[in-house]
Protein backbone atom coordinates (compact mmCIF):
# COMPACT_ATOMS: atom_id res chain seq x y z
CA UNK A 1 0.00 0.00 0.00
CA UNK A 2 1.54 3.26 -1.05
CA UNK A 3 0.15 6.34 0.61
CA UNK A 4 -0.79 8.99 -1.90
CA UNK A 5 1.78 11.74 -1.93
CA UNK A 6 0.23 14.78 -3.56
CA UNK A 7 2.79 16.99 -5.19
CA UNK A 8 2.89 20.48 -3.85
CA UNK A 9 4.06 22.82 -6.59
CA UNK A 10 6.58 25.36 -5.47
CA UNK A 11 3.97 27.96 -6.40
CA UNK A 12 4.55 31.59 -7.27
CA UNK A 13 7.30 33.61 -5.79
CA UNK A 14 6.67 35.26 -2.48
CA UNK A 15 3.95 37.76 -3.20
CA UNK A 16 5.63 40.65 -1.42
CA UNK A 17 8.48 40.25 -3.88
CA UNK A 18 6.07 40.34 -6.79
CA UNK A 19 4.36 43.52 -5.66
CA UNK A 20 7.81 44.98 -4.92
CA UNK A 21 8.89 44.25 -8.50
CA UNK A 22 6.03 46.33 -9.94
CA UNK A 23 6.79 49.17 -7.54
CA UNK A 24 10.40 49.14 -8.62
CA UNK A 25 9.37 49.41 -12.27
CA UNK A 26 7.27 52.50 -11.46
CA UNK A 27 10.20 53.98 -9.52
CA UNK A 28 12.56 53.47 -12.48
CA UNK A 29 10.02 55.16 -14.77
CA UNK A 30 9.90 58.18 -12.43
CA UNK A 31 13.72 58.31 -12.25
CA UNK A 32 13.89 58.43 -16.06
CA UNK A 33 11.15 61.05 -16.20
CA UNK A 34 12.88 63.34 -13.68
CA UNK A 35 16.37 62.88 -15.13
CA UNK A 36 15.01 63.41 -18.68
CA UNK A 37 13.19 66.55 -17.63
CA UNK A 38 16.28 68.01 -15.96
CA UNK A 39 18.59 67.17 -18.85
CA UNK A 40 16.39 68.01 -21.83
CA UNK A 41 13.73 70.35 -20.41
CA UNK A 42 15.64 72.40 -17.81
CA UNK A 43 19.03 71.99 -19.54
CA UNK A 44 17.58 73.07 -22.91
CA UNK A 45 15.94 76.11 -21.39
CA UNK A 46 19.18 77.04 -19.58
CA UNK A 47 21.21 76.96 -22.82
CA UNK A 48 18.50 78.67 -24.87
CA UNK A 49 18.30 81.60 -22.45
CA UNK A 50 22.04 81.73 -21.91
CA UNK A 51 22.49 85.43 -22.90
CA UNK A 52 19.65 86.58 -20.65
CA UNK A 53 21.24 85.53 -17.32
CA UNK A 54 23.34 87.97 -15.31
CA UNK A 55 25.76 85.13 -14.49
CA UNK A 56 25.46 82.03 -16.63
CA UNK A 57 28.14 80.37 -14.53
CA UNK A 58 25.99 80.69 -11.39
CA UNK A 59 22.94 79.29 -13.19
CA UNK A 60 25.06 76.43 -14.52
CA UNK A 61 26.33 75.73 -11.03
CA UNK A 62 22.79 75.61 -9.65
CA UNK A 63 21.82 73.30 -12.52
CA UNK A 64 24.67 70.98 -11.49
CA UNK A 65 23.61 71.12 -7.82
CA UNK A 66 20.10 70.15 -8.94
CA UNK A 67 21.54 67.32 -11.09
CA UNK A 68 23.48 66.02 -8.08
CA UNK A 69 20.33 66.18 -5.92
CA UNK A 70 18.47 64.18 -8.58
CA UNK A 71 21.29 61.61 -8.76
CA UNK A 72 21.33 61.24 -4.96
CA UNK A 73 17.53 61.04 -4.87
CA UNK A 74 17.56 58.33 -7.58
CA UNK A 75 20.03 56.23 -5.62
CA UNK A 76 17.88 56.63 -2.50
CA UNK A 77 14.61 55.60 -4.12
CA UNK A 78 16.17 52.69 -6.02
CA UNK A 79 17.33 51.29 -2.68
CA UNK A 80 13.82 51.40 -1.23
CA UNK A 81 11.57 53.97 0.36
CA UNK A 82 13.94 56.65 1.71
CA UNK A 83 13.67 57.75 5.32
CA UNK A 84 12.39 61.13 6.39
CA UNK A 85 15.80 62.71 6.84
CA UNK A 86 17.56 61.75 3.56
CA UNK A 87 14.41 62.40 1.50
CA UNK A 88 13.91 65.88 2.86
CA UNK A 89 17.64 66.70 2.67
CA UNK A 90 17.53 66.10 -1.08
CA UNK A 91 14.22 67.98 -1.38
CA UNK A 92 15.53 71.00 0.56
CA UNK A 93 18.77 71.10 -1.49
CA UNK A 94 16.66 71.09 -4.68
CA UNK A 95 14.38 73.81 -3.28
CA UNK A 96 17.37 75.96 -2.26
CA UNK A 97 19.08 75.58 -5.65
CA UNK A 98 15.85 76.41 -7.44
CA UNK A 99 15.15 79.48 -5.30
CA UNK A 100 18.75 80.72 -5.67
CA UNK A 101 18.60 80.27 -9.45
CA UNK A 102 15.27 82.14 -9.61
CA UNK A 103 16.53 84.95 -7.37
CA UNK A 104 19.62 85.41 -9.60
CA UNK A 105 17.51 85.76 -12.77
CA UNK A 106 17.18 89.22 -14.27
CA UNK A 107 14.25 91.16 -12.70
CA UNK A 108 11.10 91.13 -14.74
CA UNK A 109 12.18 88.14 -16.84
CA UNK A 110 12.34 85.57 -14.07
CA UNK A 111 9.36 83.46 -15.16
CA UNK A 112 10.41 83.59 -18.81
CA UNK A 113 13.97 82.36 -18.23
CA UNK A 114 13.42 80.16 -15.16
CA UNK A 115 14.51 76.57 -15.72
CA UNK A 116 14.61 75.43 -12.10
CA UNK A 117 11.01 75.41 -10.87
CA UNK A 118 10.09 72.29 -12.82
CA UNK A 119 13.32 70.44 -11.90
CA UNK A 120 12.91 71.16 -8.19
CA UNK A 121 9.28 70.03 -8.27
CA UNK A 122 10.19 66.78 -10.05
CA UNK A 123 13.03 66.13 -7.60
CA UNK A 124 10.46 66.48 -4.80
CA UNK A 125 8.18 64.03 -6.59
CA UNK A 126 11.10 61.61 -6.95
CA UNK A 127 12.14 61.46 -3.28
CA UNK A 128 8.72 61.97 -1.62
CA UNK A 129 6.77 59.72 -4.00
CA UNK A 130 6.42 56.78 -1.60
CA UNK A 131 6.07 58.88 1.52
CA UNK A 132 2.81 60.46 2.68
CA UNK A 133 1.10 62.45 -0.07
CA UNK A 134 0.80 65.46 2.26
CA UNK A 135 4.61 65.72 2.42
CA UNK A 136 4.77 66.15 -1.35
CA UNK A 137 1.91 68.68 -1.20
CA UNK A 138 3.81 70.70 1.42
CA UNK A 139 6.95 70.58 -0.68
CA UNK A 140 5.23 71.71 -3.88
CA UNK A 141 3.48 74.51 -1.97
CA UNK A 142 6.79 75.65 -0.45
CA UNK A 143 8.39 75.62 -3.90
CA UNK A 144 5.54 77.72 -5.39
CA UNK A 145 5.70 80.17 -2.46
CA UNK A 146 9.46 80.59 -2.84
CA UNK A 147 9.09 81.42 -6.55
CA UNK A 148 6.19 83.74 -5.75
CA UNK A 149 8.38 85.42 -3.09
CA UNK A 150 11.10 86.08 -5.67
CA UNK A 151 8.48 87.42 -8.05
CA UNK A 152 7.06 89.74 -5.37
CA UNK A 153 10.56 91.01 -4.60
CA UNK A 154 11.00 91.88 -8.27
CA UNK A 155 7.58 93.54 -8.39
CA UNK A 156 4.36 91.69 -9.15
CA UNK A 157 2.06 92.99 -11.84
CA UNK A 158 -1.08 91.41 -13.19
CA UNK A 159 0.71 89.82 -16.21
CA UNK A 160 3.37 88.29 -13.93
CA UNK A 161 0.71 86.87 -11.62
CA UNK A 162 -1.15 85.34 -14.59
CA UNK A 163 2.12 83.83 -15.84
CA UNK A 164 2.93 82.52 -12.38
CA UNK A 165 -0.48 80.87 -12.09
CA UNK A 166 -0.18 79.35 -15.56
CA UNK A 167 3.23 77.80 -14.81
CA UNK A 168 1.96 76.68 -11.40
CA UNK A 169 -1.05 74.96 -12.92
CA UNK A 170 0.95 73.21 -15.61
CA UNK A 171 4.07 72.24 -13.67
CA UNK A 172 2.71 71.46 -10.21
CA UNK A 173 -0.42 69.93 -11.68
CA UNK A 174 1.63 67.50 -13.78
CA UNK A 175 3.84 66.61 -10.82
CA UNK A 176 0.89 65.95 -8.50
CA UNK A 177 -0.80 63.90 -11.21
CA UNK A 178 2.26 61.68 -11.74
CA UNK A 179 2.60 61.15 -7.97
CA UNK A 180 -1.09 60.26 -7.63
CA UNK A 181 -0.83 57.90 -10.62
CA UNK A 182 2.10 56.01 -9.14
CA UNK A 183 0.25 55.72 -5.82
CA UNK A 184 -2.72 54.22 -7.62
CA UNK A 185 -0.50 51.75 -9.52
CA UNK A 186 1.21 50.74 -6.25
CA UNK A 187 -2.18 50.01 -4.72
CA UNK A 188 -3.20 47.94 -7.74
CA UNK A 189 0.05 45.92 -7.60
CA UNK A 190 -0.53 45.33 -3.86
CA UNK A 191 -4.02 44.02 -4.58
CA UNK A 192 -2.75 41.70 -7.30
CA UNK A 193 -0.10 40.38 -4.92
CA UNK A 194 -2.66 39.79 -2.17
CA UNK A 195 -4.87 37.90 -4.62
CA UNK A 196 -1.91 35.73 -5.66
CA UNK A 197 -1.02 35.13 -2.02
CA UNK A 198 -4.57 34.04 -1.22
CA UNK A 199 -4.54 31.69 -4.17
CA UNK A 200 -1.22 30.23 -3.02
CA UNK A 201 -2.54 29.73 0.52
CA UNK A 202 -5.69 28.05 -0.83
CA UNK A 203 -3.57 25.68 -2.92
CA UNK A 204 -1.40 24.83 0.10
CA UNK A 205 -4.49 24.19 2.19
CA UNK A 206 -5.82 21.85 -0.46
CA UNK A 207 -2.48 19.99 -0.60
CA UNK A 208 -2.41 19.65 3.21
CA UNK A 209 -5.98 18.38 3.23
CA UNK A 210 -4.97 15.80 0.64
CA UNK A 211 -2.00 14.65 2.75
CA UNK A 212 -4.23 14.30 5.82
CA UNK A 213 -6.84 12.44 3.77
CA UNK A 214 -4.20 10.05 2.41
CA UNK A 215 -2.84 9.41 5.92
CA UNK A 216 -6.35 8.71 7.21
CA UNK A 217 -6.99 6.36 4.35
CA UNK A 218 -3.73 4.51 5.06
CA UNK A 219 -4.72 4.16 8.72
CA UNK A 220 -8.15 2.91 7.73
CA UNK A 221 -6.59 0.30 5.44
CA UNK A 222 -4.24 -0.78 8.23
CA UNK A 223 -7.19 -1.30 10.57
CA UNK A 224 -9.06 -3.26 7.90
CA UNK A 225 -6.22 -5.76 7.89
CA UNK A 226 -5.83 -6.07 11.65
CA UNK A 227 -8.34 -4.82 14.17
CA UNK A 228 -11.51 -5.09 12.10
CA UNK A 229 -11.41 -8.92 11.59
CA UNK A 230 -10.87 -9.41 15.35
CA UNK A 231 -13.76 -7.11 16.26
CA UNK A 232 -15.93 -8.95 13.70
CA UNK A 233 -15.03 -12.32 15.21
CA UNK A 234 -15.78 -11.04 18.72
CA UNK A 235 -19.12 -9.64 17.55
CA UNK A 236 -20.04 -12.86 15.75
CA UNK A 237 -19.12 -14.91 18.80
CA UNK A 238 -16.56 -16.98 16.91
CA UNK A 239 -13.76 -15.58 19.08
CA UNK A 240 -14.02 -16.28 22.80
CA UNK A 241 -12.82 -13.43 25.05
CA UNK A 242 -12.03 -16.05 27.66
CA UNK A 243 -9.42 -17.58 25.37
CA UNK A 244 -5.88 -16.43 26.26
CA UNK A 245 -4.92 -16.21 22.61
CA UNK A 246 -7.86 -13.96 21.80
CA UNK A 247 -6.94 -11.76 24.76
CA UNK A 248 -3.38 -11.52 23.51
CA UNK A 249 -4.58 -10.64 19.99
CA UNK A 250 -6.84 -7.98 21.49
CA UNK A 251 -3.94 -6.49 23.44
CA UNK A 252 -1.83 -6.31 20.30
CA UNK A 253 -4.60 -4.65 18.30
CA UNK A 254 -5.33 -2.19 21.11
CA UNK A 255 -1.65 -1.25 21.19
CA UNK A 256 -1.67 -0.79 17.42
CA UNK A 257 -4.66 1.52 17.63
CA UNK A 258 -2.80 3.58 20.23
CA UNK A 259 0.20 3.77 17.98
CA UNK A 260 -1.92 4.83 14.99
CA UNK A 261 -3.23 7.72 17.04
CA UNK A 262 0.28 8.57 18.25
CA UNK A 263 1.65 8.53 14.69
CA UNK A 264 -0.59 11.42 13.72
CA UNK A 265 0.64 13.55 16.63
CA UNK A 266 3.11 16.22 15.63
CA UNK A 267 5.74 15.94 18.36
CA UNK A 268 9.51 16.15 18.45
CA UNK A 269 11.00 12.74 19.19
CA UNK A 270 8.19 10.86 17.44
CA UNK A 271 9.75 7.44 18.06
CA UNK A 272 9.85 7.84 21.86
CA UNK A 273 6.31 9.19 21.77
CA UNK A 274 5.06 6.21 19.73
CA UNK A 275 6.88 3.75 21.99
CA UNK A 276 5.16 5.30 25.00
CA UNK A 277 1.82 4.90 23.22
CA UNK A 278 2.68 1.29 22.38
CA UNK A 279 3.58 0.66 26.03
CA UNK A 280 0.33 2.11 27.29
CA UNK A 281 -1.72 -1.05 26.83
CA UNK A 282 0.94 -3.25 28.47
CA UNK A 283 1.06 -0.84 31.43
CA UNK A 284 -2.72 -1.17 31.84
CA UNK A 285 -2.13 -4.92 32.05
CA UNK A 286 0.17 -4.28 35.00
CA UNK A 287 3.48 -4.59 33.17
CA UNK A 288 6.04 -2.09 34.51
CA UNK A 289 7.56 -0.48 31.44
CA UNK A 290 10.69 1.70 31.64
CA UNK A 291 11.71 3.77 28.63
CA UNK A 292 15.14 5.38 28.67
CA UNK A 293 17.15 7.23 26.08
CA UNK A 294 20.88 7.79 25.75
CA UNK A 295 22.13 10.64 23.62
CA UNK A 296 20.45 13.08 21.27
CA UNK A 297 18.28 10.84 19.11
CA UNK A 298 18.13 11.44 15.35
CA UNK A 299 14.78 11.68 13.57
CA UNK A 300 13.79 8.21 12.34
CA UNK A 301 11.63 8.01 9.17
CA UNK A 302 8.06 6.76 9.55
CA UNK A 303 8.45 3.31 7.87
CA UNK A 304 11.42 2.47 10.14
CA UNK A 305 9.47 3.69 13.20
CA UNK A 306 6.66 1.36 12.14
CA UNK A 307 8.98 -1.67 12.14
CA UNK A 308 10.44 -0.72 15.54
CA UNK A 309 7.07 -0.10 17.21
CA UNK A 310 5.71 -3.35 15.73
CA UNK A 311 8.53 -5.17 17.49
CA UNK A 312 7.76 -3.22 20.67
CA UNK A 313 4.09 -4.20 20.53
CA UNK A 314 4.93 -7.88 19.97
CA UNK A 315 7.36 -7.94 22.92
CA UNK A 316 5.26 -5.86 25.30
CA UNK A 317 2.21 -8.02 24.62
CA UNK A 318 4.25 -11.05 25.64
CA UNK A 319 5.86 -9.41 28.70
CA UNK A 320 4.61 -10.81 32.02
CA UNK A 321 5.55 -8.20 34.58
CA UNK A 322 8.33 -5.90 33.39
CA UNK A 323 9.96 -4.52 30.31
CA UNK A 324 12.75 -2.07 29.70
CA UNK A 325 13.02 -0.17 26.43
CA UNK A 326 16.14 1.84 25.71
CA UNK A 327 16.98 4.06 22.78
CA UNK A 328 20.67 4.72 22.30
CA UNK A 329 22.48 6.69 19.65
CA UNK A 330 25.00 4.45 17.91
CA UNK A 331 27.29 5.04 14.94
CA UNK A 332 25.12 6.27 12.06
CA UNK A 333 21.82 5.33 13.65
CA UNK A 334 19.89 4.30 16.69
CA UNK A 335 19.68 1.07 18.72
CA UNK A 336 16.29 0.41 20.30
CA UNK A 337 16.48 -2.48 22.70
CA UNK A 338 13.90 -4.41 24.66
CA UNK A 339 14.47 -6.52 27.75
CA UNK A 340 11.33 -8.23 29.01
CA UNK A 341 10.26 -11.30 30.98
CA UNK A 342 8.42 -12.90 28.08
CA UNK A 343 9.21 -16.43 29.19
CA UNK A 344 9.68 -17.61 25.63
CA UNK A 345 10.96 -16.50 22.25
CA UNK A 346 8.66 -13.91 20.69
CA UNK A 347 7.80 -13.99 17.01
CA UNK A 348 9.03 -10.62 15.92
CA UNK A 349 7.83 -8.82 12.79
CA UNK A 350 10.05 -8.87 9.74
CA UNK A 351 12.94 -6.44 9.63
CA UNK A 352 12.94 -3.82 6.88
CA UNK A 353 12.98 -0.11 6.14
CA UNK A 354 16.63 0.00 7.21
CA UNK A 355 15.92 -1.73 10.54
CA UNK A 356 17.72 -4.94 11.53
CA UNK A 357 16.30 -6.96 14.44
CA UNK A 358 18.14 -9.44 16.66
CA UNK A 359 17.02 -11.29 19.74
CA UNK A 360 18.43 -13.53 22.43
CA UNK A 361 16.55 -15.56 25.02
CA UNK A 362 18.12 -16.15 28.42
CA UNK A 363 16.28 -17.98 31.22
CA UNK A 364 12.88 -16.44 30.55
CA UNK A 365 14.29 -12.98 29.81
CA UNK A 366 14.17 -11.78 26.25
CA UNK A 367 16.63 -9.27 24.87
CA UNK A 368 15.90 -7.85 21.44
CA UNK A 369 17.47 -5.00 19.58
CA UNK A 370 16.15 -3.12 16.56
CA UNK A 371 18.94 -1.15 14.92
CA UNK A 372 18.08 1.51 12.42
CA UNK A 373 20.91 2.61 10.20
CA UNK A 374 20.58 6.01 8.57
CA UNK A 375 22.85 5.04 5.67
Amino acid at each position, binding site marked *: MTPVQPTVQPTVQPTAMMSGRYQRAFTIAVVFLVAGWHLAGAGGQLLHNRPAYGSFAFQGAMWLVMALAIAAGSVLVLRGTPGWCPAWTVAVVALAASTAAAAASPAGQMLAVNWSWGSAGWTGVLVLLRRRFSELAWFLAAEALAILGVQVRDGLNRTDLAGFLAVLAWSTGAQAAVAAGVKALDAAAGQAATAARNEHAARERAATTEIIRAARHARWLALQESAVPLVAELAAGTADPGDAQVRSRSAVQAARLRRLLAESDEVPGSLVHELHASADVAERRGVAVEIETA*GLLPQVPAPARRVITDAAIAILSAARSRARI*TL*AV*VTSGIAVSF*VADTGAVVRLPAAGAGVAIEQ*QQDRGMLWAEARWNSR
Partner: protein
Amino acid sequence: MEQPVTVAIIEDHPVVTEGVASWIRSDPDQRVRLVHTARDLTGLRAVPRPAADVIILDLELSGELVTAQIPGLVAAGYRVVAFSGHSDPVIVIETLDNGAHAYVSKEEGRDHLVEAVLAAAADRPYVTRSQARAMLTDQRSARPALSQQEQQALLLWFQGMSKASVGRRMSISENTVRQYINRARAKYAATGRTAPSKDALLARAIEDGVIRAGEIMPYKSFAAPAADRPCLDAPGQ
Protein backbone atom coordinates in the same frame (compact mmCIF):
# COMPACT_ATOMS: atom_id res chain seq x y z
CA MET B 1 32.97 -12.55 59.59
CA GLU B 2 34.34 -9.25 58.38
CA GLN B 3 33.44 -6.03 60.15
CA PRO B 4 30.32 -4.51 58.56
CA VAL B 5 30.79 -1.40 56.46
CA THR B 6 29.55 1.71 58.28
CA VAL B 7 27.35 4.08 56.35
CA ALA B 8 25.76 7.51 56.77
CA ILE B 9 22.67 8.62 54.86
CA ILE B 10 22.37 12.30 53.93
CA GLU B 11 18.88 12.74 52.56
CA ASP B 12 16.32 15.48 53.10
CA HIS B 13 13.24 13.26 52.73
CA PRO B 14 12.75 11.07 55.83
CA VAL B 15 10.68 8.56 53.87
CA VAL B 16 13.61 7.93 51.52
CA THR B 17 16.00 7.61 54.47
CA GLU B 18 13.60 5.08 55.95
CA GLY B 19 13.48 3.14 52.67
CA VAL B 20 17.27 3.05 52.32
CA ALA B 21 17.58 1.93 55.95
CA SER B 22 15.17 -0.91 55.26
CA TRP B 23 17.22 -2.07 52.26
CA ILE B 24 20.30 -2.06 54.47
CA ARG B 25 18.48 -4.07 57.17
CA SER B 26 17.15 -6.59 54.70
CA ASP B 27 20.63 -7.53 53.47
CA PRO B 28 20.81 -11.22 54.49
CA ASP B 29 24.47 -11.02 55.51
CA GLN B 30 24.11 -7.69 57.34
CA ARG B 31 27.19 -6.44 55.54
CA VAL B 32 26.34 -2.77 56.09
CA ARG B 33 25.64 -0.94 59.37
CA LEU B 34 23.85 2.41 59.42
CA VAL B 35 25.60 4.76 61.85
CA HIS B 36 24.38 8.23 61.01
CA THR B 37 21.49 9.93 59.22
CA ALA B 38 21.05 13.64 58.56
CA ARG B 39 19.01 15.95 56.39
CA ASP B 40 21.97 18.13 55.44
CA LEU B 41 25.76 18.20 55.49
CA THR B 42 26.36 20.34 58.60
CA GLY B 43 26.72 17.31 60.91
CA LEU B 44 29.58 15.98 58.77
CA ARG B 45 31.56 19.18 59.29
CA ALA B 46 31.43 18.87 63.11
CA VAL B 47 34.54 18.00 65.07
CA PRO B 48 35.09 15.14 65.63
CA ARG B 49 33.56 14.05 62.35
CA PRO B 50 31.06 11.19 62.49
CA ALA B 51 32.85 7.97 61.67
CA ALA B 52 31.44 6.30 58.54
CA ASP B 53 33.15 4.45 55.72
CA VAL B 54 30.64 5.49 53.09
CA ILE B 55 28.15 8.31 52.71
CA ILE B 56 24.96 7.77 50.74
CA LEU B 57 24.40 11.29 49.47
CA ASP B 58 21.21 12.63 47.96
CA LEU B 59 22.44 15.09 45.33
CA GLU B 60 19.66 17.55 45.97
CA LEU B 61 19.26 18.73 49.55
CA SER B 62 16.50 21.26 50.28
CA GLY B 63 16.26 22.09 46.59
CA GLU B 64 19.98 22.69 46.14
CA LEU B 65 22.36 20.58 44.08
CA VAL B 66 25.30 19.55 46.28
CA THR B 67 27.63 17.96 43.72
CA ALA B 68 30.16 20.70 44.50
CA GLN B 69 30.34 19.49 48.14
CA ILE B 70 31.61 16.05 47.12
CA PRO B 71 35.33 17.00 46.86
CA GLY B 72 35.22 18.28 50.45
CA LEU B 73 33.66 15.03 51.73
CA VAL B 74 36.15 12.94 49.79
CA ALA B 75 39.07 15.02 51.12
CA ALA B 76 37.76 14.36 54.65
CA GLY B 77 38.21 10.65 53.99
CA TYR B 78 34.62 9.62 53.22
CA ARG B 79 33.68 7.55 50.21
CA VAL B 80 30.59 8.90 48.52
CA VAL B 81 27.82 7.01 46.73
CA ALA B 82 25.46 9.47 45.07
CA PHE B 83 21.80 8.49 45.27
CA SER B 84 19.61 10.79 43.25
CA GLY B 85 16.45 11.31 41.28
CA HIS B 86 18.48 13.32 38.77
CA SER B 87 19.49 11.04 35.93
CA ASP B 88 20.82 13.75 33.63
CA PRO B 89 24.10 12.31 32.26
CA VAL B 90 25.83 15.67 32.73
CA ILE B 91 25.11 15.60 36.47
CA VAL B 92 26.18 11.94 36.69
CA ILE B 93 29.53 12.67 35.03
CA GLU B 94 30.08 15.75 37.21
CA THR B 95 29.35 13.66 40.30
CA LEU B 96 31.92 11.04 39.29
CA ASP B 97 34.42 13.72 38.31
CA ASN B 98 34.07 15.30 41.76
CA GLY B 99 35.16 12.03 43.33
CA ALA B 100 31.98 10.06 44.06
CA HIS B 101 32.54 6.32 43.82
CA ALA B 102 29.27 5.43 42.20
CA TYR B 103 26.03 6.90 41.05
CA VAL B 104 22.74 5.15 41.82
CA SER B 105 19.49 6.60 40.52
CA LYS B 106 16.46 6.38 42.79
CA GLU B 107 14.84 3.85 40.42
CA GLU B 108 17.89 1.58 40.77
CA GLY B 109 18.18 1.88 44.53
CA ARG B 110 16.70 -1.41 45.65
CA ASP B 111 18.87 -3.53 43.36
CA HIS B 112 22.08 -1.58 43.50
CA LEU B 113 22.49 0.70 46.50
CA VAL B 114 23.82 -1.81 49.05
CA GLU B 115 26.15 -3.38 46.48
CA ALA B 116 27.41 0.06 45.45
CA VAL B 117 28.14 0.93 49.10
CA LEU B 118 30.09 -2.31 49.56
CA ALA B 119 32.06 -1.73 46.36
CA ALA B 120 32.85 1.86 47.42
CA ALA B 121 34.06 0.71 50.84
CA ALA B 122 36.50 -1.63 49.08
CA ASP B 123 37.53 1.12 46.56
CA ARG B 124 36.17 -1.08 43.79
CA PRO B 125 34.27 0.28 40.79
CA TYR B 126 30.53 -0.10 40.65
CA VAL B 127 28.67 0.88 37.49
CA THR B 128 24.89 1.22 37.52
CA ARG B 129 22.86 1.37 34.31
CA SER B 130 22.33 5.11 34.68
CA GLN B 131 26.08 5.51 35.10
CA ALA B 132 26.67 3.39 31.98
CA ARG B 133 24.31 5.66 30.07
CA ALA B 134 26.20 8.76 31.20
CA MET B 135 29.53 7.23 30.17
CA LEU B 136 28.12 6.19 26.77
CA THR B 137 26.81 9.66 26.00
CA ASP B 138 29.72 11.64 27.42
CA GLN B 139 30.66 14.25 24.83
CA ARG B 140 33.27 16.23 26.79
CA SER B 141 36.60 16.78 25.11
CA ALA B 142 38.31 15.43 28.24
CA ARG B 143 36.40 12.11 28.23
CA PRO B 144 38.51 8.97 28.41
CA ALA B 145 38.97 6.81 25.30
CA LEU B 146 36.91 3.62 25.70
CA SER B 147 37.64 0.53 23.60
CA GLN B 148 34.92 -0.89 21.35
CA GLN B 149 34.39 -3.85 23.66
CA GLU B 150 34.09 -1.58 26.68
CA GLN B 151 31.50 0.49 24.84
CA GLN B 152 29.58 -2.58 23.69
CA ALA B 153 29.51 -4.02 27.22
CA LEU B 154 28.34 -0.67 28.62
CA LEU B 155 25.63 -0.42 25.95
CA LEU B 156 24.24 -3.92 26.61
CA TRP B 157 24.41 -3.33 30.36
CA PHE B 158 22.56 -0.02 29.94
CA GLN B 159 19.96 -1.79 27.80
CA GLY B 160 19.01 -3.92 30.78
CA MET B 161 20.68 -7.29 30.23
CA SER B 162 22.22 -9.19 33.12
CA LYS B 163 26.03 -9.38 33.00
CA ALA B 164 25.75 -13.10 32.24
CA SER B 165 23.53 -12.34 29.24
CA VAL B 166 25.89 -9.61 28.09
CA GLY B 167 28.66 -12.21 28.19
CA ARG B 168 26.67 -14.67 26.08
CA ARG B 169 25.79 -11.94 23.63
CA MET B 170 29.44 -10.91 23.30
CA SER B 171 30.71 -14.53 23.47
CA ILE B 172 32.87 -13.77 26.50
CA SER B 173 32.70 -14.79 30.16
CA GLU B 174 30.69 -12.86 32.73
CA ASN B 175 33.98 -11.99 34.43
CA THR B 176 35.31 -10.42 31.26
CA VAL B 177 32.12 -8.36 31.03
CA ARG B 178 32.77 -7.07 34.56
CA GLN B 179 36.34 -6.39 33.58
CA TYR B 180 35.31 -4.29 30.55
CA ILE B 181 32.75 -2.29 32.51
CA ASN B 182 35.05 -1.77 35.47
CA ARG B 183 37.92 -0.82 33.22
CA ALA B 184 35.77 1.87 31.60
CA ARG B 185 34.95 3.14 35.10
CA ALA B 186 38.62 3.09 36.11
CA LYS B 187 39.49 5.17 33.05
CA TYR B 188 37.05 7.77 34.34
CA ALA B 189 38.88 7.82 37.66
CA ALA B 190 42.03 8.69 35.73
CA THR B 191 40.57 11.77 34.05
CA GLY B 192 39.42 15.20 35.15
CA ARG B 193 40.06 16.66 38.57
CA THR B 194 42.17 14.75 41.07
CA ALA B 195 40.62 13.28 44.23
CA PRO B 196 41.93 10.78 46.79
CA SER B 197 38.90 8.54 46.16
CA LYS B 198 39.69 8.41 42.44
CA ASP B 199 43.34 7.59 43.13
CA ALA B 200 42.28 4.83 45.53
CA LEU B 201 39.83 3.38 43.00
CA LEU B 202 42.49 3.43 40.29
CA ALA B 203 45.13 1.89 42.56
CA ARG B 204 42.73 -0.89 43.49
CA ALA B 205 41.80 -1.47 39.84
CA ILE B 206 45.48 -1.87 38.97
CA GLU B 207 46.00 -4.20 41.95
CA ASP B 208 42.98 -6.27 40.90
CA GLY B 209 44.27 -6.48 37.34
CA VAL B 210 41.24 -4.63 35.94
CA ILE B 211 43.49 -2.19 34.18
CA ARG B 212 47.20 -1.78 33.57
CA ALA B 213 48.91 1.52 34.29
CA GLY B 214 49.81 1.77 30.60
CA GLU B 215 46.18 1.50 29.52
CA ILE B 216 45.14 4.70 31.22
CA MET B 217 45.16 6.99 28.23
CA PRO B 218 42.76 9.89 28.27
CA TYR B 219 41.06 11.01 25.10
CA LYS B 220 43.42 13.60 23.65
CA SER B 221 41.81 16.71 22.35
CA PHE B 222 43.50 19.80 21.04
CA ALA B 223 40.88 21.74 22.96
CA ALA B 224 41.88 20.24 26.30
CA PRO B 225 44.44 22.31 28.18
CA ALA B 226 47.66 20.55 29.13
CA ALA B 227 46.89 20.98 32.85
CA ASP B 228 43.94 18.62 32.44
CA ARG B 229 46.24 15.65 31.92
CA PRO B 230 45.70 13.30 34.82
CA CYS B 231 48.61 12.23 36.95
CA LEU B 232 49.24 8.71 35.65
CA ASP B 233 52.04 7.54 37.86
CA ALA B 234 50.71 8.56 41.28
CA PRO B 235 48.38 5.68 42.12
CA GLY B 236 49.68 2.25 42.87
CA GLN B 237 53.09 3.41 44.10
